[in-house]
């Protein structure tokens, strides 16, 4: 596999990532259940937290900076975004008639 493969003595990165992920998740839970905000504000809040957590996990767990080839990472990410947009926007467009 990759040439820059090595073991750290203690997986600090993973621990910090894990704790931050928990914090972000509980923050989302709090916003949804106990913040008392308007529905729109709640939706915006949890979406922002979700995006933050996705980025966090890409760096903390998913080795996004450790690849041999930036090209593969770029294609991979671009395609992921494309699929995510297709699934979300496509579903909303398709289901708009019942909303």
């Amino acid at each position: 596999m990759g040439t820059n493969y090595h073991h750290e003595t203690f997986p600090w990165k993973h621990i910090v990532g894990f704790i931050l992920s928990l914090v972000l998740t509980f923050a989302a839970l709090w916003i949804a259940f106990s913040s008392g905000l308007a529905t729109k504000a709640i939706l915006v809040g949890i979406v922002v937290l979700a995006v933050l957590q996705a980025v966090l996990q890409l760096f903390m767990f998913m080795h996004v900076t450790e690849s041999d080839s930036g090209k593969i990472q770029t294609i991979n990410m671009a395609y992921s975004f494309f699929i995510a947009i297709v699934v979300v926007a496509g579903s909303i467009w398709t289901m708009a008639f019942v909303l």
Partner: protein
Amino acid sequence: MKWSEFFVTGEPLIYAADVSIVLTVIGIVFILTYFKKWKWLWDEWLTTVDHKKIGVMYIISAVLMLFRGGVDALLMRAQLTAPNMKFLDSQHYNEIFTTHGTIMILFMAMPFIIGLMNIVVPLQIGARDVAYPYLNALSFWLFFVGAMLFNIAFVIGGSPDAGWTAYFPLAGNEFSPGVGNNYYAVALQISGIGTLMTGINFLVTILKMRAPGMTLMRMPMFTWTILITCVLIIFAFPVLTVALALMTFDRLFDTQFFTMANGGMSMLWANLFWIWGHPEVYIVILPSFGIFSEVVSTFARKRLFGYKAMVGSIVGIAFLSFIVWVHHFFTMGAGAAVNSFFSITTMAIAIPTGVKIFNWLFTLRKGRIRFTTAMLWSLAFIPNFVIGGVTGVMLAMAAADYQYHNSYFLIAHFHYVLIAGTVFACFAGLHYWYPKMFGHMLNERLGKWTFWLFMIGFNVCFFPMYFLGLMGMTRRMYTYSAGLGWTPLNVVASVGAALMGIGFLVLCYNIYYSARYGERDMTGDPWDGRTLEWATSSPVAHYNFAVIPEVKDLDAYWEMKKSGKGFEMDEEKLKPIHMPSNSGRPFLISIAFFFAGFGLVFKWFTLAIIAAVFIILGLILRSFDDDDGYYISVDEIKRTERLTRKEA
């Protein structure tokens, strides 16, 4: 749930199934004990991480599931042969078409394809195993326990009965109160996790473990299709995972994602199901295209025509497969703009598919064709699949689809693409690669009997269904009245189904016959093959390649043979080979998954939680596992190679 409802009661067919299941289990236990094979079973199969053995287990499971799904199909045909039949009641019929569809797609077509790709892909790219052998074993066992969990539903607790698509609101608690659809949600979830891991495993294997010299554009076509299939799996299966999780919450914990009341949106299930479901059908068809490409090229003795166009069209099909899903529910009412968009994208898929058809035809042109069984399946695929494809384009026209939707026209269409595409490919691949798996050939004579019986039976069974559909017969109806005039064509269809059943029996006999009397393959290259798997011995040595081959051309082994060298092995160059150790943990974790799943199905949460603890324990033990595998010594490699490479 009361204990009296635990076992399904009341139907003679079910009691017969109970008896046969008990007898089979007793028979297996007796044979294993009598011949003292328990240790062999554990050491050689249950704990193996060898991609070839895992592939064989996938294929055995797939053939068993083909039998189960086939019996379901024959029961349905028996019920529909004449009007007003009383053979099955409506509930039993619902259960049978549900299990038929789910089993044939997820537990027959998928594992058959995944089994072939397990056996062939590492050999084709000149690798010694997959990237993550331990994960590969876990993938298989998760698929297997998922399949078993789904299969026991019809005798324990009750079968799912809402169709293989399990549309809400029918599949919700309100209209399906039993445990049947819990089985659907949980069993598919467990085997789906296995499939997702397979996708990741083979993507990494193909991208990272190719032999030196094998650039992407020198990969055999089958490997190319598997690479793209893995991308489809990785992007499509998470949608199913999420949809099934929401379904599970709805059914077990009374959430309201897909219900009619309380803000639920039942049609969203159909939407999510098909966002996964459409790429899913390409997950089973693209590898089939790969198999046909290999077989056609080998038996026409020509390089595959238009290799680059083939690659381009696979990528094109994969891309389009994610933007066509609404064509499964044009009649839901999404409106003209939505339907037009998805109608056009669907028709566009015919373009890259047409390119591939012409590439196969041009590969055949002026080829020196040998009519082996594998080649017969591939040749029959072309016209039969085209019939399925053209009727598919008819269904793609949104306005016309209001007529065809959920009629037998649709049934005929998707059986024409799935059987003539995927099932023919599985049989072709089985005959073609059989010597690599077991060291002997499948008998050609019996193979041709299977081919003609099954292929003619298939057309006799499904071609009339196009007309039945146009005459108004709809999907999933369990009986019909005599005055409708559907009887003659239904009788014809049932005759065809019986022929297919006989073809399947001949195939099973062929497997037995060939194991006893089949021609041993001493050469390792019985078909005069073109790609690297034919450079190995038959059956393939545990480590696949004593030395990793150098690839100089697209048809790597063909090039070696033409340059007069063959695949030379210099004994001086041998080095100890690093191999992964066997592990029983994937099997045991999967057993825990089975009990966790069973607990969820019956809402026995204590059982589910205890089993979940064992799953997590298995993961923790794996994390602290320091086993780095073992080395095969040069002496042992020399001994094995001298035994198998007499001619070289």
